[in-house]
């Protein structure tokens, strides 16, 4: 056990040695809380390890952690790398788990593969508060370190321990996007001159515990980046990477989630889905005609106390809540296809109304109109200004209305009607015939 200069972080490291050569070194840092269990460094002196069940020829040793502090955040950290034999040549393997004990073993025979690397980077999205990890792999036959500091502890996490999981997820996805998938150490300044270019929303859907099973919580975070001039992103901005987490671990997207995503009415948010594909470590959604300066990222996290199956309806609800949250917070974004069409009429509507105002020979009427528009006398400021103001007001009303829930949007088309006049008759010829010949002939 080594101590770092920061006394609040305890670092445990052990190495994997094969045939006397150090193959990999793993350091695990444990954040120590200020009060309560785990607040004293001495507590960690009781950490034990045993070698039972593992061939000692490959291991320095095993680490057994006995702690009651944020156990759930420690254990899931290991699961992304399980099972690991097919994925990479680096493996974590959980030996046993109890309420207060975690035993795991590490085996490295070569550097972590890219997929395992990505999984670890995705783990950071969850912003698990009490775990930070530094992974260093060193190979004997390579000069220097092959991979060094693949990821670093998030020392700048602004969230405190009491932040909710969805807040952590939001923060984590924000960092993930700003750092181009957590590849960079800091925000990419080339793409993001200002943090305002990145807009975040979230939605949480819960199901109650019942006799069928424990309740399920689904959190969704959506990030939309405005990237007018982005040198880093490839041309495939019309695709969205949907990261899926289950019980605080990255996982491949279940069928229920993919089904939920493809069943959403994306047109009510101004988006058209082309298709969804299940990749190895994430799902990829492709859009039709996404504006070229926009990029969408999404993270879905399902968790429950006990084992569960993903709930398609709950996932769909959480995603929709996040989309509605986005619409509510950011004016003009995710306008439904219908609202976009209605907005296209705004210039013509404004032109007609402005025409009535400006062509009137009633100056008092013009003054009243100017007052309602918040302008000076229309004749003094010009037609274009009047039109633009009216157009802006119309668009604002349309956008505001588009954010309202569906049940409020519908207006009664008819009032005080006894019955709808049934007119089974074909449309009669207009009585205002402008021509001169007889209309009808019986030539049939």
């Amino acid at each position, binding site marked *: 056990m080594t101590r770092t200069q920061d006394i609040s972080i305890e670092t445990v490291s052990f190495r994997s040695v094969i045939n006397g050569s150090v193959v990999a070194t793993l350091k695990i840092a444990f954040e120590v809380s200020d009060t309560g269990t785990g607040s004293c460094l001495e507590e960690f002196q009781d950490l034990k390890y045993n070698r039972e069940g593992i061939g000692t020829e490959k291991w320095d040793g095993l680490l057994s952690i006995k702690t009651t502090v944020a156990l759930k955040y420690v254990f899931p950290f290991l699961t992304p790398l399980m099972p690991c034999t097919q994925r990479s040549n680096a493996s974590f393997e959980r030996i046993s788990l109890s309420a207060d004990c975690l035993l795991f073993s590490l085996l490295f025979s070569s550097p972590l593969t890219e997929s395992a690397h990505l999984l670890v980077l995705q783990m950071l999205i969850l912003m698990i508060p009490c775990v930070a990890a530094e992974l260093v792999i060193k190979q004997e036959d390579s000069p220097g370190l092959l991979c060094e500091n693949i990821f670093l502890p998030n020392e700048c996490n602004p969230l405190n321990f009491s932040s909710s999981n969805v807040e952590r997820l939001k923060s984590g996805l924000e960092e993930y996007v700003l750092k181009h998938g957590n590849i960079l150490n800091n925000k990419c300044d080339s793409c993001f001159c200002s943090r305002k270019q990145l807009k975040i929303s979230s939605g949480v859907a819960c199901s109650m515990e019942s006799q069928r099973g424990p309740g399920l919580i689904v959190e969704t975070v959506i990030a939309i980046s405005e990237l007018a001039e982005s040198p880093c992103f490839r041309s495939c901005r019309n695709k969205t990477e949907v990261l899926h987490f289950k019980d605080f671990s990255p996982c491949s997207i279940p069928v229920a989630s993919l089904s939920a995503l493809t069943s959403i009415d994306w047109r009510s948010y101004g988006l058209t889905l082309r298709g969804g594909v299940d990749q190895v470590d994430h799902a990829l959604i492709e859009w039709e005609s996404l504006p070229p300066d926009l990029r969408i990222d999404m993270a879905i996290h399902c968790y429950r106390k006990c084992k569960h199956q993903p709930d398609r309806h709950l996932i769909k609800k959480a995603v929709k809540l996040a989309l509605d949250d986005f619409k509510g917070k950011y004016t003009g974004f995710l306008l439904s296809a*219908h609202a976009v*069409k*209605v907005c296209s*009429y705004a210039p*013509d*509507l404004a032109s*007609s*109304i402005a*025409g*009535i105002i400006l*062509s*009137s*020979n*009633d100056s008092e*009427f013009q003054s*009243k*109109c100017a007052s*309602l*528009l*918040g302008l000076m006398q229309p004749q003094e400021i010009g037609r274009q200004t009047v039109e633009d103001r*009216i157009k802006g*007001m*119309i668009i*604002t*009303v*349309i956008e*505001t*209305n588009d954010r309202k829930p569906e049940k409020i*949007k*519908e*207006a*009664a*088309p*008819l*009032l*005080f*009607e*006894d*019955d709808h*006049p*049934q*007119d*089974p*008759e*074909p449309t*009669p*010829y*207009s*009585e*205002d*015939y*402008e*021509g*001169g*010949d*007889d*209309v*009808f002939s*019986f030539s*049939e």
Partner: protein
Amino acid sequence: MEGIHSRICSTDLLRKIKEFTLSILDDLSEGRSPLIFIQRFRIYCTNFDSNCSCSCNKPNGHEILTFQKESHVHRIDVLLRVLLIVHQLLQENKHASKRDIYYMHPLVFSDQTVVDRAINDICILLQCSRHNLNVVSVGNGLVMGWLRFFEAGRKFDCINSPNTAHTIPVLVEDVKDLVSVAHYILIVEKESVFQRLANDKFCSKNRCIVITGRGYPDVSTRRFLRLLVDKLCLPVYCLVDCDPYGFDILATYRFGSMQMAYDAKFLRVPQIQWLGAFPSDSENYNLPQRFLLPLTMEDKRRTEAMLQRCYLHQEVPRWRSELESMLQRGTKFEIEALSVHSLSFLSEVYIPWKIQEVTSMCHI
């Protein structure tokens, strides 16, 4: 709703247009979607078993146009464009036809009926008639017979040449000093019949006024007819082909049209009597079988639909019986078919006999 005898001045309409505009701006400034209420009118329904209110000239509900539906926004766009044009016509005291208005924005309007609907909407909103908006139709009706009048200073002396056709004035308000010695007014459906009567010098032998709308009557024709009826208090007879279209034209004169339902009160002529042709006339006047054409599927469908109109049950049950008879026989014929006996059979025999028959029935 104002009629032909009271004039809504342009000032009133301009005031209403300004109030309408201010209400829209007020809603927008408050962040509200403007709501445009347009009353619905109808001249008939299909609930002929109950006491409906179709003849009461009252609105039958509202339509509410909003910015929330794309179809509504398009209709509002058209309405505002036409309203701007009307606003300019009223301010400058100029007139334009509906067709003129259509050609101002043909790509947006796409069809004349779109303009017609917008004009109707504006009439309902401003509670006026079409002519009050300075929107005029090209006159399509013809008149001849024993009457004389002035129109915008021009004299129409039909009495001197009662068999000469004159175009019915477009603006009824311009008709002054109407004088007539006619005994009745005869409406004929088609121009061909009108010309037949003119060639036969019908008005020389019969002291009457003859009018045709040349098919479905336009608003000018209907308003002129209404003026004659109100001023002269003469019986009115209507002669149409014995087919569904002829009957529908008869019903338009008598009860008004659904399109102009909001103004039906001032356009319909309740005094009209159906002179012919009835289905039974084919037998009564020995019409050869070859002139009886079969009703097409469309004819039958239209006839069945017209039979559902409430006023046929409530106000003119005899007309309904004749229409049912047409459907049962499954045949139709034109008025001109009666000329099989002689070219002047219509003007010398059929019409005088029919009028005498109707007159006798009234006296009984």
